């Protein structure tokens, strides 16, 4: 039994102090560790891509020939593929996300119907990307192929456009819930003032809400873009995997992430591997900047 003497004895106090110190140090250590891991991730990527940076330099980003046999690694087609699919996905998805945000943030912020709608969207954001890709391959690709035949385009089915569509579907729930969040934060007194001046709801949205939350919408788009840039599985399954710069929107291509996914485990020589890692490093840096920027803007609301 612990008595008062026991609790205040020098030995007990000493033990308490030790556990106390261990506990606080442990907390601090875990925080330091995660920062160190992040720095280590960055350094690992940089160090492992050094062979490729040394032997290829800027040609890596500006040439478009990717031939492992002759050790020629030009990542331009993949850079191009990543940019075009992500931007296209963003363009397709943004009007829908904004419509969604307005519907749930402004028109119907409460009520059982909008709660259900909101929950559905959040659940859909959790569907794994490999399932999106699988569905795209078996449902979307045949549909697009028939349309391509109708319009007389080479009917690949897979390609830049198909990947962008699936990407748009994947990032829509994410940006929609972010945009809903910022739109619902528009101060009520501003809206009331506008209504009292005789504005219609559309005018309130156009002249008050959209300008007020424009930076938030921008942040939502930015974060969605960050997702799209690094998205791997669905794109790998749908883009067609060719190493040339895509000639048309409907032709097959490749993105940085899909090239890594396809070739990383099979790359035999050092420069090849490090060329792939260099693309990973590029993705890392770009998404890092986009994420930190986007989150800083969102935090201001």
């Amino acid at each position, binding site marked *: 039994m612990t008595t008062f003497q026991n609790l205040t004895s020098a030995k007990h106090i000493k033990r308490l102090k030790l556990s106390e110190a261990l506990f606080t140090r442990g*907390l601090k250590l875990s925080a330091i560790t995660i920062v160190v891991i992040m720095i280590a991730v960055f350094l*690992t990527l940089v160090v492992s891509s050094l062979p490729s940076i040394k032997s290829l330099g800027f040609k890596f980003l500006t040439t478009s020939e990717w031939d492992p046999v002759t050790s020629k690694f030009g990542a331009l087609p993949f850079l191009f593929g990543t940019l075009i699919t992500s931007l296209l996905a963003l363009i397709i998805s943004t009007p*829908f996300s904004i*419509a969604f945000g307005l519907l749930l943030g402004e*028109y119907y912020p409460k009520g059982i119907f909008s709660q259900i*709608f909101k929950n*559905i969207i959040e659940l859909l954001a959790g569907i794994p990307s490999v399932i999106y890709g699988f569905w795209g391959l078996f449902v979307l690709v045949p549909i697009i192929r028939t349309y391509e035949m109708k319009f007389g385009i080479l009917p690949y089915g897979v390609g830049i456009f198909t990947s962008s569509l699936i990407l748009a579907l994947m990032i829509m729930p994410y940006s929609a819930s972010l945009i809903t969040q910022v739109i619902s934060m528009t101060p009520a007194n501003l809206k009331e003032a506008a209504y009292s001046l005789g504005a219609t709801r559309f005018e309130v949205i156009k002249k008050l809400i959209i300008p007020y939350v424009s930076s938030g919408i921008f942040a939502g788009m930015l974060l969605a873009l960050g997702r799209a*840039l690094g998205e791997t599985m669905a794109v790998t399954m749908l883009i067609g995997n060719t190493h040339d710069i895509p000639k048309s929107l409907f032709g097959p291509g490749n993105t940085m992430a899909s090239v890594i996914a396809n070739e990383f485990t099979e790359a035999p020589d050092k420069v090849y591997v490090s060329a792939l890692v260099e693309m990973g490093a590029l993705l*890392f840096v770009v998404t890092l900047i986009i994420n930190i920027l986007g989150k800083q803007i969102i935090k201001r609301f």
Partner: protein
Amino acid sequence: MKGQGITFRRIKDVFVKGLIILMAGCSVVPLVAILYYVFKQGIEAINWDFFTQLPKPVGEVGGGIANAIVGSLLIIFFAAAMAIPFGISIGVYLSEHGETKLAYFTRLVVDALQGIPSIVIGIVIYIWVVKPMGHFSAFSGSIALGIMMIPIIARSTEETLKLIPFSLKEASLALGVPYYKTMMKVIIPSGLSGILSGIILSIARITGETAPLLFTAFGNPFFNFDIQHPIHTMLTPMSSMPLIIFNYATSPYDDWHRLAWGTAFLLLVFVLMLNIITKIATRKWKVQF
């Protein structure tokens, strides 16, 4: 400003509202279509063999994905075992020492880590673990997924603990309870529901992750789980459900497609269940004082 008639303005208003409802409705349709299609195709593929058999070689009908189900569970279990204590202690640090410089950087890193493409984490773990070991292993997959879990757990822990009133801590400290015991026995238990839902959410997030497993767990058509040597098993390549979907979906065989649909269905049900549990948990056991 040039005046517009009130009728015109009102018509415009109604028109825009209709357009917004239409667009929002349209955007949900394909998403629900995915769910419907996976459910329809998946239920047909599922039977007893699906859960108990190994994948059959090409040409033989039947077979199941027993190895992938066990593989997924093992990989997730080890990932969670590593990430949960780590994530919680980061969260506690952030909520307790939120103003320090280290906390600022930690928060930045945790935020950034959430946005890093999973394939990049796969590359890094390949360089850190797979290359020195010389072969692919389930364990390296767990590490990759664990790193992806940490930010979610840390963030939800921090957010939950911030809601707990200071008076609770003061009361405990005033009774002479040492600081670490106050944290472990008073503060963390009162925020347990929030922490738990963060953990479930993080598991839901990583269950479907495929990209980091491509270079780490790699996949394996056999059942190599040995109950007497679980550690040894974790050091060999292992199959998992997302990998099965990816490999079988891109194969040309109908029977493999069927297995892939079944796996997609199972994975989807699992992920959606976890998400729904998180939702209910956050509502029911809301931390409130």
